[in-house]
């Protein structure tokens, strides 16, 4: 376990060579400036439920969908740089010549990609929630369930995106191919849904409206009602299942079938 932790630390540090902080600031500015409506109509002591719904509708849900931009971009870049490029450049060959299990190396790489992506997505979400309009944040943090639900959705969908990017990176073993291929695979369900007429709104990037819609389901008068469970399950269980299958595939390929060239 300590060997894995050490390996994970090295991989994560390796990914942080990428300008994560700059990306984070860039996305935060993008989300805060481009997608926002300014100001707030804070009117205490009006109905708190009404205020929350109103503010979320006006500020949060319109922006939260933009989180898919950093999510997709970060996951694809990290997997391409952290996995495909390292295979292509020969780092993986060198690493696997040391007393290191393939399983540990793969898990360390995957986990570092996932967490680095999550850090960017989380940072951007933080910007959406708190940076542009601080008064909205007061309402949002008053209801941790809302924040928690959004974070669960983000974690699950980040996991799915990372799984897609990782499997393409491992199979392609080429940085450019991994970058282009990952976007291709991620947009495939959207493209296919257009062809066959069946929508898959619960997988990124087509699920841009999910977070916003999810938050809007509790409208002004009925904010305290339960959130739509079906939507929530679709947006969490399906990406987890598909992601798990892809993760398993890339894991087995890397640990059992992968010839280091």
């Amino acid at each position: 376990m300590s060997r894995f932790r050490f390996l994970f630390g090295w991989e994560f540090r390796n990914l942080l060579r990428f300008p994560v902080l700059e990306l984070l600031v860039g996305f935060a500015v993008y989300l805060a400036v481009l997608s926002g409506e300014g100001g707030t109509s804070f009117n205490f002591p009006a109905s708190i439920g009404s205020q929350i719904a109103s503010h979320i509708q006006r500020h949060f849900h319109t922006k939260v969908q933009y989180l898919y931009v950093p999510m997709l971009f970060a996951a694809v870049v990290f997997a391409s740089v952290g996995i495909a490029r390292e295979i292509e450049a020969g780092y993986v060959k060198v690493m696997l010549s040391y007393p290191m299990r393939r399983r540990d190396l793969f898990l360390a790489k995957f986990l570092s990609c996932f967490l680095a992506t999550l850090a960017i997505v989380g940072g951007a979400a933080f910007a959406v929630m708190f940076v542009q309009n601080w008064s909205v944040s007061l309402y949002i943090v008053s209801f941790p369930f809302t924040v928690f639900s959004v974070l669960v959705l983000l974690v699950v969908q980040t996991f799915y995106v990372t799984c897609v990017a990782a499997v393409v990176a491992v199979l392609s073993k080429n940085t450019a191919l991994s970058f282009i291929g990952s976007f291709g695979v991620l947009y495939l369900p959207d493209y296919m849904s257009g062809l066959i007429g069946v929508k898959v709104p619960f997988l990124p990037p087509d699920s841009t409206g999910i977070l916003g819609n999810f938050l809007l389901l509790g409208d002004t008068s009925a904010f305290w009602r339960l959130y739509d469970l079906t939507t929530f399950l679709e947006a969490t269980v399906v990406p987890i299942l598909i992601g798990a299958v892809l993760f398993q595939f890339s894991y087995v390929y890397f640990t059992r079938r992968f010839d280091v060239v």
Partner: protein
Amino acid sequence: MRLIEVRGLVKCFGGVVALSGIDLEASRGAFGFVGPNGAGKTTMVKILLGLMRASRGEARIFGLDVWEESFAIRRRVGVLHEKPTFPGWVTGVEFLEYVCKLKGLREPRKTALKELCFFGLAEAAGRQIGGYSAGMMQRLGLAQAFVGEPELVFLDEPTANLDPLGRAEFLEMVKERCRDGGISVVISTHILSELERVCDSVAILFEGAVLEQGGLDELARKYSEDLCLVDSTDNKRMLEGLERLGSVEGAWIEEEIVKVKVRDRRRFEKDVVGLAHDLGLGVRRLEPVLSGLEDVYKQVLRRGGVVE
């Protein structure tokens, strides 16, 4: 127990056969793979390290299966790959410390610095690897391969990027380290003079097959049978007598010693003894001319029908 045992090893990449049923054995000491580019040397090394899976056959190091027990093997070996790539964003000492930790060595920082000093990188230890020259990179490669005194070190085309002086220095470092540490080494190269300087035994590979293998002396004797040296008390008279023998194809004097191309060596030795007796000459030397590895290599390829 043999250090390396390989039986019927086959590796195919799609329709291309990279290794076609290789059998070989290597004992402790310095062993070399030699062959032209594309002979399968690097593929062989990668399979032995568990980086590639063989299509068929069996390979063992220290008696352990190279694929199933690869982790246990890699705890006991060091490797310098062909054109090695090390992370350019860390310093030499940071990288070597990381390797020490992976190998589970005590006092990783101290060990790393000691190793860098041995390979002449003490001054560059604190510099980022990205700024290293090709020679420094190769030294760092040696340092990471030999750190922790492994039982066996693989060196794949270790001098490919070095100038002649750098090569000589590099080989001296390898020899010194192997001699002092009792470390066995497997070198894969197409530069024959390197193997001759370092190795005790070699395997000659061509297009994925082992054409010949054995100790350097053994191979030299085996492929030197048709050339002998004769030094007698009167080499001019000896030469005249030798030219009349049926077991001799040709003879000449070179550096005051008679060199003879023989047809049948056993018969030749008897004939020379008889001739010396008849001529009343004393024989000071009668021995085959040992071929260098380059001669052996050419003859092996010629006999294998690879070259004319």
